């Protein structure tokens, strides 16, 4: 064991900007990025619906494709964190993982998640706490019907 220099050690000692200013700047970034991120989320939801929705010809789709599309929603959700669409996308990733572990799709559970994503996208800001809880409890219930995917071995 040995000590290494910490280049961040002096960041609170001299000069700089007020903490409130730093956070205000960063929160302004979030506001400015809101519309572009919503556009991206809309494109992702459209693609997910077209490829994996009830109207699509669903059969032997690649689990990894839906997983990655859902993960990309999480990637750009910071500016729209109030909608909590990232939480539904996270749940969808988990569900897809569990489906992949079993090598079979659970389309009704996928459809529940797609509906939740659309609801949160378009009405998320108006939903109250109780309504949100119902949505997320519902997503948890359908996801938990499948056994969890095995964890990757340590070091893998």
């Amino acid at each position: 064991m040995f000590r290494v220099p910490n280049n961040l050690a002096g960041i609170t000692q001299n000069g700089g900007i007020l903490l409130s200013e730093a956070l205000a700047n960063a929160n302004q970034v979030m506001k400015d990025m809101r519309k572009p991120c919503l556009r991206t989320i809309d494109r992702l939801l459209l693609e997910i619906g077209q490829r994996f929705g009830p109207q699509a010809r669903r059969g032997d789709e690649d689990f990894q494709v839906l997983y990655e599309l859902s993960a990309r929603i999480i990637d750009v959700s910071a500016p729209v964190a109030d909608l909590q669409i990232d939480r539904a996308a996270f749940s969808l990733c988990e569900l897809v993982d569990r489906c992949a572990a079993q090598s079979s799709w659970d389309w009704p559970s996928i459809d529940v998640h797609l509906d939740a994503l659309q609801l949160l996208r378009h009405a998320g800001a108006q939903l109250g706490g109780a309504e949100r809880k119902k949505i997320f409890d519902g997503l948890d219930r359908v996801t938990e019907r499948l056994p969890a995917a095995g964890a990757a071995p340590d070091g893998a």
Partner: protein
Amino acid sequence: MFEPPKIKTPVRINLERLTVMLIDDNPQALDILAQVVAGFGVRQIIKCENAEMAMQVVRKHPLDFVITDDQMAGTDGCQFVEWLRREAGPPNAFIPVIIVTGHSRLGQVKRARDCGAHFLVAKPITPKVLLDRIFWISKDEREFIETATYAGPDRRFKREGPPPGTKGRRAEDRGTVVGEATTPNLSQDQINDMLKPSKVTI
């Protein structure tokens, strides 16, 4: 999930002189992170869209801090950090690294803990959470460890000694048996003096 100890939030923060590298294969996510970090006052920001690009930067530029996505095509964030700790050489080998991740399987969380990163933070990242982690790292006094199986900051955040009933594996671990006293007990006045608050001028 581990929550770092609460620290007293300072009033001012100076990140102007830091060089920060950000790695994410999602261009929009990379852009969001860069703008947030710039909002904190960082002036030198290097954006990399993959780990291979980041490795080239590490070979050429001294850095102060890295934030990397974990799930990327090709070399992922954990693999990058393992390379950084083993292959980059000082001083970049020791710089703080935060890994950010969306959905994480349990195995990935363990990998992130064991790859040598300082923190794993869940997406979406809020400015306040990121700033809190930066403050925490600025106060981090953990030593670095290099062994055959691990290179990075000491993964122990607490020093509570070995589990009860076991011998410690580290040279500085103390035994579990306290033994008989070898010096006189402290008087009550001596104890009171140790606990008396004293004025500190900042």
